[in-house]
């Protein structure tokens, strides 16, 4: 009979780099990123899926790293905030910098991932408000985040509905 696993070797691609780590199969993707791989850009604000600070893309789709267990990440492609900039900042990062989209910055990694996803797939939500509703920010009141995303959209040549 099959034995249940309490250790597994996980293979995943993070920001284009393939990585193997040995972890508990219920370890959170959040801890794997932060502690095993050393990518501390992804933040923990609640550990319960509510705040969105841990948002990453998994196979191209936004998920909450605090709710995603290792056993469901095997073979996946993950993109974190550290993976947004290539040679230069991604337009969404540049816009956040210029327009005041980041204040204390703790929500920013998750916010950027959700905004990045929305700009790639504006059809995923009715508007920006819906697309970012899972990323809570206590500093900005969101106004500057909206203007940041609009600016990035312009630079990327995308049209997004008014908020």
């Amino acid at each position: 009979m099959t034995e249940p696993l309490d250790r597994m070797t996980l293979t995943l691609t993070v920001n284009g780099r393939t990585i193997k780590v040995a972890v508990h199969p219920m370890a959170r993707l959040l801890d794997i990123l932060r502690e095993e791989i050393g990518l501390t850009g992804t933040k923990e604000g609640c550990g319960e899926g509510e705040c969105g600070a841990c948002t990453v893309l998994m196979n191209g789709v936004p998920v909450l790293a605090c709710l995603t267990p290792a056993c469901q990440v095997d073979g996946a492609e993950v993109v974190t905030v550290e993976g947004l900039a290539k040679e230069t900042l991604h337009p969404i990062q540049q816009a956040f910098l210029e327009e005041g989209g980041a204040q204390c910055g703790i929500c920013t990694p998750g916010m950027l991932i959700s905004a990045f996803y929305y700009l790639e797939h504006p059809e995923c939500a009715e508007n920006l408000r819906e697309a970012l509703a899972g990323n809570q920010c206590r500093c900005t009141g969101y106004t500057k985040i909206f203007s940041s995303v609009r600016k990035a959209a312009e630079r990327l040549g995308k049209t997004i509905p008014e908020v």
Partner: protein
Amino acid sequence: MPEASLLDFSVFNPRRLDEALSLLAEEENVVPLAGGTDLMVTLETGNLSPCRFLNLMGIAEFQEPFSWCDGKLRMSPLCSYRDTRIDKDVATRYPLLVRAAREVGVLAIQSRGTWAGNIVNASPAADGVPVLMVYDAEVELRSTSGTRTVPLCDFYRGYKEMDRASDELVTGIILPPPPEDRIEYFRKVAPRRLQAITKVLLTGYLLRSDDRIEDCRIVLGSVAPFTLRARETESILRGSVLDSETIKAARAALQGEISPIDDIRSTAMYRRNVAERLLDEFLLSASPESH
């Protein structure tokens, strides 16, 4: 960092359904794991007793979210809210599914959370279950000893109690085609617009010929120990003329059926009043005058 020690937990990763079913039949303390959006929170808060998870994500038979058979829609147990929102056919034929899906958490929850998980999690505040009930969904349960289906409306017995044996897996959710020309209603009342737990929810449809109600479904969330199909209220409405008298009677019947409570999220008084107002809003919106 989870409150619970992970050492108390382990995981099975079956690749096929029969494998999963035998594990469920033969092993102790096995808990199916779908999108994990409920289970990971319970684990994090230290409210889960030691167990072995049965990771459903890798099961070959579950990979297609939808299939159609005899005009019925079959949803796989891994079908997520996101799958539902992006499938045009489903959106056209079962619009309430999309309306509910849009209001379950936010995008990042919808990409992982499943309808089957919502059913088995059995929260009275579930947002997926009510619309499935409106569409007369049937739950397909399978174990090594066979397959059976149960109408979702009859699935719950009490708070978090349901008609599912511990060796049974939900293997599908089956939706018959709903009647044509029905008027649908869905409203989730929560402390904010998105990412919020329901305080009161009312959804349903109504089928009218002239001013007479031919058929209807009325389902409520968060006003009883489990998602409530308001059968009494429906029976008052069915066959009646949709007028203010009927609405009044329906409102009264609804009050008799619901049993909301005070908790940290709201009050019984509020839930009672709002449930009735939602019913009123629904029925008025379905009245001949408003069409």
